[in-house]
């Protein structure tokens, strides 16, 4: 083997090694990019509306903000109620977005219109109102602190991971289910539709900036085990993000 040939062989080796490394970097990058794209929030953010009012709670003044959501039994009902959902699956779903953005250090009043029926909570604990101002919520004009476990349609439950860099935020709102005996027919475009619903209002105070998640604690998906499949195991339906900014 001549010296020239050896040099070329070594050069090829280096080129092969570099090419191999670049190929691996490209493959890892492609996987990362794909995963990032797949996990990206598919929905537009729903921003709370700040008002000019303030409120004093325990000697401290907070600006006020409001935000409104709905929870619908399926796509048809969502559209009937004015939420033009783009979700591909015909699941029970919150709307108009599952990614909500709230201002920090603010008295947030949230309204949820609930149109779904219900069965029974797995964990009665989530029938309690937790984390709101006064420990209550208002259901169709009546303040309550708890809903019986067998009368809940869904819950709106905000979690926060223990973190030294984020204020704790744990809020649980059980939504009163809708049944045949409820009053208050909702206005619908189709007179034949018999949708009824409840309006739940509650207030809580946000801390500093941070990212949280929320989900429904009522087993409203499908699957033979605990009904946490389908809507409960897919993004954009019964769970989402809470950005406090």
């Amino acid at each position: 083997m001549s010296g020239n040939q050896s040099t070329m062989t070594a050069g090829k080796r280096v080129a092969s090694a570099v090419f191999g490394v670049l190929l691996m970097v490209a493959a890892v990058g492609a996987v990362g990019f794909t995963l990032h794209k797949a996990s990206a929030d598919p929905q537009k953010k729903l921003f709370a509306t700040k008002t000019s009012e303030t409120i004093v709670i325990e000697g401290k003044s907070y600006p006020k903000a409001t935000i409104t959501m709905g929870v619908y039994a399926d796509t048809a009902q969502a559209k009937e109620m004015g939420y033009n959902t783009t979700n591909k699956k015909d699941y029970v779903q919150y709307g108009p977005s599952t990614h909500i953005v709230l201002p920090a250090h603010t008295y947030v009043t949230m309204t949820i219109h609930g149109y779904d029926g219900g069965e029974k909570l797995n964990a009665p604990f989530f029938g309690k109102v937790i984390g709101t101002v006064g420990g209550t919520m208002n259901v169709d004009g009546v303040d309550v602190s708890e809903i019986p476990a067998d009368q809940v349609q869904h819950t709106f439950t905000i979690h926060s991971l223990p973190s030294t860099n984020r204020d704790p935020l744990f809020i649980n709102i059980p939504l009163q289910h809708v049944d045949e005996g409820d009053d208050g027919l909702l206005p619908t475009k189709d007179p034949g539709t018999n949708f009824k619903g409840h309006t739940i209002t509650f207030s809580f105070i946000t801390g500093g900036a941070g990212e949280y998640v929320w989900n429904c604690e009522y087993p409203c998906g499908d699957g033979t085990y605990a009904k946490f499949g389908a809507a409960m195991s897919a993004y954009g339906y019964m769970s989402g993000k809470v950005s406090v900014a």
Partner: protein
Amino acid sequence: MSDDHGLVEMQPTPGQKLAAIFKQREVRVATAWGVLVTFIFFIIGGWIYPSWMPIAMSTDMKSIERLIVIFTWISAPICGIVLGFSIYTFLHRHKGDTPPADGPAIRTNSLVVGLWVIVSSALCLVAIVYGLIEMNTASAATAEHKKNAMVVEVTGSQWAWSFNYPEQGVVSHELNLPINRPVEFRIISVDVNHSFWPVQLGVKVDANRLQTTVVDTTPNKLGTLDVKCAELCGLYHAYMETSGEVMSVADFDAWVTSHQGGHTA
């Protein structure tokens, strides 16, 4: 064994065999690497790794921490020897296009094999016996705990924990405990299986669907608790965490008083 002249060939003793092995420079260098790696793992296991672990807030956690340190020390020589020879082999690997001819095949070396089996067995035996003693100590402590234990009913559900204190009449999503009082956790899941893991208490127990599992511990240090789910349980498993606190008896009583008949806000 004798040769053609009737002379008896003396078989080397095990000591001579061992000495012959260690006369080889390669073995001495590889062994030196092994000793160095063993020493490094000994230091990591005894002093560095414990500093990475969560603060021990119960005797159980302290016991687990000690067990991990001792097991690391026990396994350090084995890891050291394997890595030592690996390092030597890597550093003295063949460079170039034409590989050298294979060396003579090593059919067997009863001494080395025997030593390896005996030492490995002894280390395993120590680990087993030590583990059994620790387990027995924990069981004895459990019996003692039950006399004055405070019951906390732990419910796992996708994807949050809730804690019921029947004696105090409190339900909470935070795990608050008084210091130095034994706690009996009654753990259950209402949907899929979870795993209850208050990290600093050294407890990690499966929360099985509709089956109650009981485990005891005694918090003995004030501080914050991280409570996690250690069993993959669905979409928001990663968020199935909460916090808590081991607090003074006075603070715990005050917390109970402020939440009796309700829940934590």
